[in-house]
């Protein structure tokens, strides 16, 4: 599915999904942020929610004729200037492998790399927060080295703990609370990404970044 055009699809009558063309990139994500700002102001839209190089438009009221909003989104996409990245950086200490990284073996098996290689590759980049989603305070990160990409699990795990560092497809992230996940957990850290008593409740926002600092590798 290589095309230069954005793809639009339905999420029932509740929302519309806008997917940017091309390889995942920060430049594209900056355009998604710009589009989110504009799309959130369109009539009938309750919230515009960035994902990884895509945008969900949640309707306050679904339009009888979708053509108009679809056309407007594509028009905006071509006209908008990317929003620049401007954020703060958070260092997270990680214990890789062991009980806190139960799926490290699956990543080894899939990639053919050693545990040490995987840890070195995973902890090297500075990851940009592309979007929040999944569960309260969770950050979708861009910038993972594709050599450690590992498919999501055949059957999701019913409970992985808060602080789990995991890989799903070409992405990586850190669970903000206990819950089900289809990703492969390779390590653990401790951080409070979300506190409903705090303003704003989420620790990070799109444009911020995360660096993983290896404190131990368990085998």
């Amino acid at each position, binding site marked *: 599915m290589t095309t230069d055009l954005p793809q639009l*699809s339905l999420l029932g*009558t509740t929302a519309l999904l806008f997917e940017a063309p091309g390889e995942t990139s920060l430049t594209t994500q900056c355009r998604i942020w710009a589009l989110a700002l504009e799309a959130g102001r369109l009539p009938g839209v309750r*919230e515009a929610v960035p994902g990884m190089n895509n945008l969900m438009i949640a309707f306050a009221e679904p339009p009888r004729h979708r053509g108009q909003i679809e056309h407007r989104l594509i028009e905006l996409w071509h006209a908008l200037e990317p929003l620049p990245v401007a954020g703060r950086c958070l260092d997270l200490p990680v214990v890789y492998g062991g009980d806190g990284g139960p799926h490290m073996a699956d990543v080894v098996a899939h990639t053919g790399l050693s545990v040490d290689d995987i840890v070195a590759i995973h902890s090297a980049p500075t990851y940009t927060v592309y979007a929040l989603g999944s*569960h309260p305070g969770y950050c979708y990160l861009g910038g993972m080295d594709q050599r450690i990409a590992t498919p999501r699990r055949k059957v999701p795990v019913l409970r992985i703990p808060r602080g789990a560092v995991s890989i*799903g497809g070409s992405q990586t992230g850190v669970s903000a609370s206990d819950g*089900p996940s289809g990703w492969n957990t390779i390590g653990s850290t401790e951080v409070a990404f*979300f506190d409903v008593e705090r303003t704003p409740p989420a620790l990070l926002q799109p444009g911020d970044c995360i660096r993983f600092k290896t404190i131990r590798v368990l085998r």
Partner: protein
Amino acid sequence: MIEVLSAGALATVQDLGRTGALNLGVGTSGAMDPLALAAGNILLRNEENAAALEIPLFPFRVRFTHSTVFAVTGADCAPRLDEAPVLPWWAHRADAGQVLSLAVPSTATWRASRVYLCIAGGIDVPSVLGSRSTQLRGAFGGLEGRPLRDGDRLPIAEPPGRAKTGFGITPPGLALPLEVDGLTAVRVLPAAEYDSFTPSSHEALWSEPWKITSQSDRYGYRLAGPELRPQRPMELRSHGIVPGVIQVPHGGQPIIQMRDAQPSGGYPKIGTVIDADLWRLGQAPIGSRIRFVLCSWDEALDASAATRRWLSNARRLVELYCNQGAVR
């Protein structure tokens, strides 16, 4: 105040859900059967969005500490006030100290599994990020962000003072039925990856029954049926999703995202159960089988309009009855 004597398990405070916090990663939560919650509130002349108790497991018992008008909607759970049987989908008054008991629902009258205990005035827990619904994953909203326990005491908001008793409405399970081959049916709009599945997967989706397995809850319904296969494996970039989205993990057995689902995901989506039919799904018992029916955008919007008409008609009848009583 109402006091929980026997909480069963997984009973929670819910309203119609939390909107506008998706950008914080906060999903919608809210009643699995929003129609039963809204209709119960209409019976009590509350706002449709007033918070109530959602009860999925039985027996469940509460004591009213004050004289209270209430309605039990959703499944037919043979409610009893002290020893006396009372009708579901009906406005009743309980005196201070009376105990309401709810039993395992019967599906002989209509097929449903969850019960809503609605109270005149509504359950008065704090509104968090715009809603009183329990956010289990985030552990906020509802009562301390958790399911109810024996001994919990729930505050009731001051009722508007105009709730009446002695009347009811026909449950939507009887008034708005939708079945295929005797099974509960829900309408589905194809989603982004629909065309990437094999023809035999399409055939199976629309023509086979799908069993709701025991690994199903407010987060999602894991279904069992024929394996759904994409033409080639897909790894998608994470994106926003909504309750009703039917994801197909690599194992080929679909999962329908429900009210506590995460607001984003990355498994391929074959379709989305339309908003107007989510209440049917919310009431479908574990172990039961359902059917999917393909629908168009216009049909989906018409279905939403029909649901809204049913609610506004219920509101009209309740107001008519109550005002008539006032004149007499």
